[in-house]
């Protein structure tokens, strides 16, 4: 905990500096760049790449959350129960699909650019959220559910006021997993011409410029770690509030 | 003979067990009873060195338990705990044979011993040998747990709240079975419980622990009739003392010639049961029999006289 409180602001400042003022780091990266080659990636600003990267992840994750939670609600209602074994199989098997393969397979259908990346992130992001939301909705404390019925809440009220709030921490864990995977997979999206921080890394790989690899890697890595950490904090807060 | 010689266990500033000395005769059941935090479980666990004593020692048949490695010592001492602690991934037979296997008994000897113990606990070996613990009822699991503790014919059997997880009816039955098996095998048993009723029913001797100290070590009758401290008296429960006393005395002690009406009682039943029968059915005497043959009767007056004599 103590380490976290010191480390967190340091990492945030480091990330901001790296994204907003990459030139500051030029002396640091210089030894890693090929002699005479560029040290700092300048074909696009790290800021715009970061924003585009995050926007892609946010859009895909938001869509995945809405769809996955809706599906989870449907299969946990009595009418959707017939689909539950099937949905479990799809989640189990779907998660074995490599994210890169999903991305690559989306290209033939959607062409290059942000499109296939968005679709791949969305499809792949569905699974952990759906799985966790179903777990959350099916492992509610029976006494609480009984009480909710007992005080006369109808089905909708039970869903909105009891089931969804109680399933929220577990669902959030699924969203966190999904977001972290999406952050990483979006990087690979640059191989299909999506504008993300992966562009910097790939440029580095293609020109043997370790300085580029490090800039891109560091920026994505810091985003991933900080977002992961922030979501863990939110989950902890929620769990504490619910006495879990 | 087990000699516990001023054994002490301290955790930081607190003395969990404070200079306890007692001697346990071979072939008897000794029940250590106390509230939680009284040090009774720590005392028991120091005997097989699951806890190392801070000072003092335990001798089994004259030999100090400190003279052997702890795990070797434990293989000679049976140990049964609350919630049975069976290995969920092993069959009943493998569970019971666990200690003999550690002692490298030959296979056929182990399986013969397993069958023998299952029969002793009225469980058909053919039916139960290959079952897994999860396929047994709570009472059966508990019996397998005790059978496992007895498997290597240990010098001593330690039991830590062995019946704690059982419901009342099964618990009474399990206590009777234990008594019965102990008498057949002549085992030496030390048992920890928080339940004075259980202590009085099972113990040849009862040791009452309070705040790490042994406050009284005596026969059940002595504990009830002459509690050494207020704490012991509390544990026994003043109101119930006469009834507890009567529960220790078999009807065969005061059976007399003469007729009596109504359903007969067994000569092995206690005076408490006879008293209950008298009060419930409004009789002044109950007929007594042994294995179906009438022995005589026990009268209400005789029960009262006997109760007064004890007090």
């Amino acid at each position, binding site marked *: 905990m103590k380490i976290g409180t010191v480390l967190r602001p340091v990492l945030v400042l480091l990330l901001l500096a790296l994204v907003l003022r990459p030139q500051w780091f030029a002396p640091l990266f210089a030894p*890693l760049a090929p002699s005479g080659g560029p040290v700092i990636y300048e074909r696009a600003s790290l800021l715009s790449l970061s924003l585009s990267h995050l926007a892609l992840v946010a859009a895909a994750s938001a869509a995945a959350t809405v769809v996955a939670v809706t599906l989870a609600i449907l299969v946990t209602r*009595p009418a959707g129960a*017939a*689909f539950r*074994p*099937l949905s*479990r*199989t799809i989640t*189990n*098997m779907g*998660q*074995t*699909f*490599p*994210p*890169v*393969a999903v991305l*690559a*397979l989306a*290209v*033939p259908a959607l062409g290059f650019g942000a499109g296939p990346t968005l679709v791949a992130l969305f499809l792949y992001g569905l699974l952990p959220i759906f799985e966790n939301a179903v777990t959350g909705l099916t492992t509610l404390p029976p006494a609480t559910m009984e009480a909710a019925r007992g005080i006369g809440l109808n089905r909708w009220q039970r869903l909105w006021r009891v089931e969804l709030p109680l399933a929220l921490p577990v669902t959030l864990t699924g969203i966190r997993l999904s977001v*972290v995977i999406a*952050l*990483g997979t979006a*990087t*690979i999206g640059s*191989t*299909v011409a999506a504008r993300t921080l992966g562009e910097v*890394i790939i440029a*580095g*790989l293609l020109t043997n410029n*370790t300085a580029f*690899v*490090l800039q*891109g*890697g*560091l920026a*994505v*890595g810091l985003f*991933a*770690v900080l977002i992961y950490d922030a979501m863990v904090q939110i989950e902890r807060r929620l769990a504490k509030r619910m006495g879990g | 003979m087990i000699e516990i010689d001023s054994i002490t266990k301290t955790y930081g500033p607190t003395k969990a067990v404070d200079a306890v000395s007692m001697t346990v005769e071979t072939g008897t059941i000794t029940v250590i009873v106390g509230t939680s935090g009284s040090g009774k479980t720590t005392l028991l666990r120091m005997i097989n060195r*699951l806890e190392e004593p801070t000072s003092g020692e335990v001798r089994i048949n004259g030999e100090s338990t400190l003279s052997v490695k702890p795990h070797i010592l*434990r*293989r*000679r001492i049976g*140990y049964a*705990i*609350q919630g*049975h*602690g*069976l*290995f*969920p991934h092993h069959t009943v037979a493998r569970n019971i044979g*666990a*200690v003999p296997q550690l002692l490298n008994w030959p296979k056929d000897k182990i399986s013969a011993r397993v069958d023998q113990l299952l029969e002793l606990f009225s469980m058909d070996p053919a039916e139960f040998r290959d079952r*897994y613990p*999860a*396929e047994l009822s709570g009472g059966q699991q508990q019996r397998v*747990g005790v059978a496992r*503790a007895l498997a290597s014919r240990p010098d001593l059997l330690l039991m830590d709240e062995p019946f704690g997880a059982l419901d009342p009816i099964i618990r009474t039955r399990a206590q009777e079975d234990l008594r019965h098996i102990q008498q057949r095998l002549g085992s030496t048993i030390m048992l920890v419980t928080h339940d004075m009723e259980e202590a009085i029913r099972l113990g040849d001797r009862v040791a009452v622990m309070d705040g790490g100290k042994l406050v009284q070590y005596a026969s059940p009758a002595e504990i009830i009739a002459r509690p050494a401290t207020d704490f012991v008296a509390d544990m026994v429960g003043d109101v119930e003392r006469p009834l507890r006393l009567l529960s220790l005395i078999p009807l065969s002690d005061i059976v007399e010639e003469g007729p009596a009406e109504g359903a007969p009682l067994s000569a092995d039943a206690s005076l408490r049961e006879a008293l209950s029968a008298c009060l419930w059915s409004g009789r002044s005497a109950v007929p007594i029999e042994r294995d179906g043959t009438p022995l005589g009767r026990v009268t209400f007056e005789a029960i009262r006289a006997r109760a007064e004599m004890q007090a």
Partner: protein
Amino acid sequence: MKSTGAAISAPGLLFAVAGVAALLTPFMTLAANRIVAGEGVLAWNIAGPAAVTPGLIAVLGGLGLGLLQRPASLRLGGAVLGLGGLLWLLTQGASCLLAETGEYARVSPAVGFWVLLVVLMLLMADALTAMAPKPLMRGAILVAVLGALAIILGSGALSDLSVMQEYAGRSDAFAREAVRHLGLAFGSLAAAVVIGFPLGVVAHCRAALRSATLPVLSFLQTIPSLAMFGLMIPILGWVGATVPGARALGIAGIGFAPAFTALVLYSLLPVVGNTVAGLAAAPPAALEAARGMGMTPGQRLLRVELPLGLPIILTGLRIVLVQNIGLAVIAGLIGGGGFGTFVFQGLNQTATDLILLGALPTVVLALTAAIVMDILVDLTRRLPEDAT
């Protein structure tokens, strides 16, 4: 609740609707060469009526059988029938469409085929889930499915398809990259087990080590894969250049070594974490009893903690294996080889079939690994099923 609805399987209805809709989209694509976009051909136009009709009937019949609520075996039969029809249509269409066109023309399955394939596979999975086969039976089914796939591919029935033509031109490279891919995935798994398992056992015994290791490993896990692969390049390049003898062992900044190292680092968290969780899963009462009966710490580990934790430990290995099969694709980007080589070549050349040549085997490999590991996990749960 609904008396009439009881005989119809709700998922089956979904499959049938999706399947019929898929039939209305292009089933195959015909392109003038391997780069240009082709034009879609509907299922009943890919060949003459005599060739197409049996296939269409089989597909529709399969979907129809899937509508039944039970028996599950009949639904499974429906899935097999439908897949057979799909295969029939594909082979008929490929040869027939190619017969009418130029030398460089390519035919490939189009969206209709893929959707039908997925729908029928899901029908199969749904039926199998209902049948709940025992672990060994599942293994037999897997072998049968893979065997059928091998026979179909080996028979040359599909060799007219574009993706198979890509393969035909690269069969040597394909074999080489397949071995490389397996080497990366299984090799990194083995290395992670050799390092991670002892680490997990020690961490199980030492709380201080446990609280120090696990956060570091979860941190490693959050680093995006491309960044991790990229970062390994300078590090291993430096090792290769400075540590004597390292270069002779093949340690260098590009190729196999950085990919392998990155995969091992990713694998450590599931291996160590699940080993710790598995060893901690033994019931406390059983451990107390084990100690009380005189088992040494080593005996407790081997006889109680390890067997009881094995399913959880193996689950960790399943995660690692499936994850590494997928991540190994990225090795193709840094010259590490594997199926990723085809994927990224295909992306560079915008050659869809080359992408498929890399992606499809990866998916099949990952699915197979997942199923095999699931079977192993079930086999190690030695508790009888009705007991849990």
